[in-house]
């Protein structure tokens, strides 16, 4: 049952490789010997039922959880992130499913959180609020249709507006890998189209993207490679060009063997 | 000997204050809020003010530890048109700032009960017209001597104090230790935060830890009543002696009933009373005696009836030099 990298996927172009990663919460086995590979400069999709363990895997890669066993290799080095800060420094930006926005801060403060622009005044570094606000406005208007005021608190935003802010934050800073956990779940048609454009643009600019989505049409449209998880295990991977939506559904539901 | 006023000259000040017809307007700042001791003091102040037909404003700190709050209150009153200030500072120095301002304005300052630190007063140019009060160390000593009288053969005693580090409590305890005979051994000192309930619990525990205990010294009456209760609860009434300080009405009754073996009565009523008299005398242009000892009595079962009959006033005669000045 344990999945191993597809024979077809050479590990040379690999940006991220998970090998037998396991993690349990009490007696919930969220990840069971998960192995998969992400190639450089590609859009990789990760699909699976609710509770299959996708977000948990993402959290392992982005430094929130530490795997109980197995290893993760990123950009050639085995990684052992102790905190999300380590992951961000290594070049991994994440849009978490639960968004990770600070509701009481404004849109611009959230966008630049821990990436603040400062002006040096002798020994002290003061925030350059104007610059950040102006840039935020630009960033948000690329994605949102009903653009929220960058100085309103995130608490005030609609579900989709928040999602847009979270995506902007991850996309706005150059990084090697951008992970997006169901980025378009709350988005409208127009916004979804813009995010998909953004994802393509990121690939063109040479970033790699890990996309989690329940929308198989979207997955087939965007991705180069699909990995499928079921009940904590990675049960298979396919090149998108060589598979079909039906095969993926079969893998997700367990109707097909590997 | 402490509480020596830093300077005389009450006459000049009274004149400078320009009170019409020699009637002072008095502001008093005292210590406690929820303690009967200071209520008796306030009563003394109010009664004498009423008798003398003078106006008086009494303010108190929020608690016996509220040093800065008391200073704030004095400062609040200092800017107003009072001619005479009666102060009972929580510590030797906490009111210095306000007092310095009053001295600059040539207001009469009467220090009652707890003395202002003389060295601090001197360096801040604080001029005190007079000091009226009893030394807490002296009160503690009286309690110690009484304990020795009650238990000539000595033994193990314990001390229940107020909040740890509190000045009044510290002075009384220090006095007690000086006053007891050489046969006594203080086995434990517990801080019961001036609370009757805590004193009760602490005394129960102390008696359990020291089965041979023969007596308690308690830093005020309220806690003393708690200790007496603890002794009664453990069936040791009479076997373990309790002596406390203050002379509140309830304590006097307890002494009479025999649950308390004595209280050192400091007569805050008389102190407050004389404080107002001192202001009146100063306003009338009299020269005040620098240092007036307030009455203090050891109340025991023998004189408890007398004490109760006259409370809050002292039952015995006492020396009141101001009475003559304002006749």
């Amino acid at each position: 049952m344990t999945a191993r990298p597809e024979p077809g996927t050479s590990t040379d172009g690999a940006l991220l490789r998970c090998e037998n990663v396991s993690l349990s919460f009490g007696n919930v086995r969220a990840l069971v010997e998960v192995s998969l590979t992400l190639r450089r400069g590609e859009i990789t999709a990760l699909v699976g039922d609710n509770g299959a363990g996708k977000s948990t895997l993402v959290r392992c890669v982005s430094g929130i959880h530490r795997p109980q066993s197995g290893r993760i290799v990123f950009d050639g080095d085995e990684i052992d992130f102790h905190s999300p800060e380590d992951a961000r420094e290594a070049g991994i930006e994440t849009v978490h499913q639960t968004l990770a926005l600070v509701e009481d801060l404004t849109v611009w403060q959230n966008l630049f959180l821990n990436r603040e622009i400062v002006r040096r005044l002798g020994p002290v570094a003061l925030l350059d609020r104007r610059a950040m606000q102006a840039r935020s406005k630009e960033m948000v208007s690329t994605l949102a249709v009903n653009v929220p005021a960058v100085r309103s608190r995130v608490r005030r935003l609609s579900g989709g507006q928040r999602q847009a802010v979270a995506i902007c934050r991850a996309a706005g800073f150059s990084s090697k890998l951008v992970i997006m956990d169901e980025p378009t779940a709350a988005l409208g048609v127009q916004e979804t189209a813009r995010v998909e454009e953004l994802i393509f643009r990121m690939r063109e600019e040479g970033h790699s993207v890990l996309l989690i989505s329940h929308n198989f049409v979207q997955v087939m449209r965007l991705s180069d490679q699909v990995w499928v998880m079921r009940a904590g295990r990675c049960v298979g991977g396919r090149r998108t060009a060589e598979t079909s939506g039906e095969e993926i559904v079969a893998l997700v539901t367990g109707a097909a063997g590997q | 000997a402490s509480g020596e006023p830093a300077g005389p000259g009450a006459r000049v000040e009274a004149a400078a204050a320009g009170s019409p017809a020699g009637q002072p307007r008095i502001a008093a700042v005292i210590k406690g809020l929820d303690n009967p001791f200071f209520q008796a003091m306030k009563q003394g102040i109010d009664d004498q003010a009423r008798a003398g037909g003078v106006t008086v404003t009494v303010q108190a700190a929020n608690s016996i530890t509220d040093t800065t709050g008391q200073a704030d209150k004095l400062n609040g009153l200092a800017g107003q048109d009072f001619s005479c200030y009666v102060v009972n500072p929580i510590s030797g120095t906490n009111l210095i700032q306000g007092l310095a301002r009053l001295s600059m304005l040539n207001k009469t300052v009467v220090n009652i009960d707890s003395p202002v630190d003389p060295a601090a007063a001197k360096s801040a140019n604080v001029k005190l017209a007079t000091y009226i009060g009893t030394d807490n160390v002296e009160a503690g000593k009286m309690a110690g001597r009484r304990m020795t009288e009650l238990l000539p053969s000595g033994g193990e005693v314990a001390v229940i104090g107020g909040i740890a580090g509190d000045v009044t409590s510290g002075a009384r305890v220090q006095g007690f230790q000086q006053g007891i005979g050489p046969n006594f051994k203080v086995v434990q000192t517990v801080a019961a935060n001036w609370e009757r309930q805590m004193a009760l619990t602490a005394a129960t525990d102390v008696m359990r830890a020291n089965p041979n205990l023969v007596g308690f010294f308690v830093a005020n009456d309220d806690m003393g009543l708690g200790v007496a209760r603890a002794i009664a609860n453990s069936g040791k009434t009479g076997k373990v002696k309790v002596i406390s300080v203050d002379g509140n009405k309830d304590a006097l009754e307890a002494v009479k009933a025999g649950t308390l073996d004595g209280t050192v009565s400091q007569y805050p009523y008389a102190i407050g009373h004389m404080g107002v008299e001192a202001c009146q005398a100063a306003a009338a242009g009299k020269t005040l005696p620098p240092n007036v000892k307030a009455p203090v009595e050891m109340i025991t079962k023998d004189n408890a009836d007398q004490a109760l009959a006259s409370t809050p006033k002292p039952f015995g005669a006492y020396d009141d030099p101001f009475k003559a000045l304002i006749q």
Partner: protein
Amino acid sequence: MANATLAAGDREAWSARLKDLGFWAEWAALVGLVVLVIVFQALNPTFLSAGNIASMLVAAAILIILAVGQTFVIATAGIDLSIASTMTLGAVAFGQAYAAGWGLALSCLLGIVASALVGVANGVIIARGKITDFIVTLGTLSAASGLALILADGKPVTIIDPVLLSLSTGGLGIFGWSFVIAVVVALVAHVMLFHTRFGTHLLATGGAPESATAMGISTERIKIAVYTISGTLAGLGAILLVARIGAAEPAANTSFLLNSVAAVVLGGVSLFGGRGTIIGPFIGAMLLVALVNGLTLLGVSQFYQPLAVGIVVVLAALLTRFQR
């Protein structure tokens, strides 16, 4: 062009804000203070005399400094219950050093360092031990006052020093030196909170610790920092306290604890963290001091004062009801 729209947005935002009840709620403490001042002045004209204002400002200085420290802690959704006994410990350390002849400057430094160390201990235990702020600072409340008692052997030390005396009595016009110090502290704190990365990270830590962590902010470091700041400010308060009462006493200054938190909450800062201002707690502290001062001036009886304080505090808080 972006700038132009921003500026326009600014103006619009301001005029909208003025109409918004929520805006006034943020300034509840100020409204309360103004009302109080008007009432007291009407009842007793000495209230706004230069002398009384001066003494109120001086009386408020220590509370302001503690409230600023408390604000930093509360903005991270914590609370520093040890702030008053940390101040006591600082005062005692200062007093003992001074009595031992260390000289004023060195003694001051020692007092501040002692308090700062309590803050560091708080921060480290809370952040690394992952224990609730409330219980840790409750523990250090007790421990610090115990240490103060032990250090001082339960006795106060009288400190008479001309420099300290002028600190507590001198000043710039009606602004006593200690008030001037408090204002400077508040200004620096304001800049830290709203114009540095640290401030933003602090608010993020308070508002959504998990999100802050996910964004790579070390919430541990922030926690340690805020408690250190609060401890240091308690140390500064200790110096002013010694200057004010002329002695270093080991007895607890309990009223400062609840008052410091009250000033912060009256200033419109949520105890749940993530939001905060400095000006609010500043005014909150002034409100509390003015309240007691005014009641004293009016000669309200000692028994009625707690009742009056309670009612006014609740009324002032009622103004904040439109907030959020």
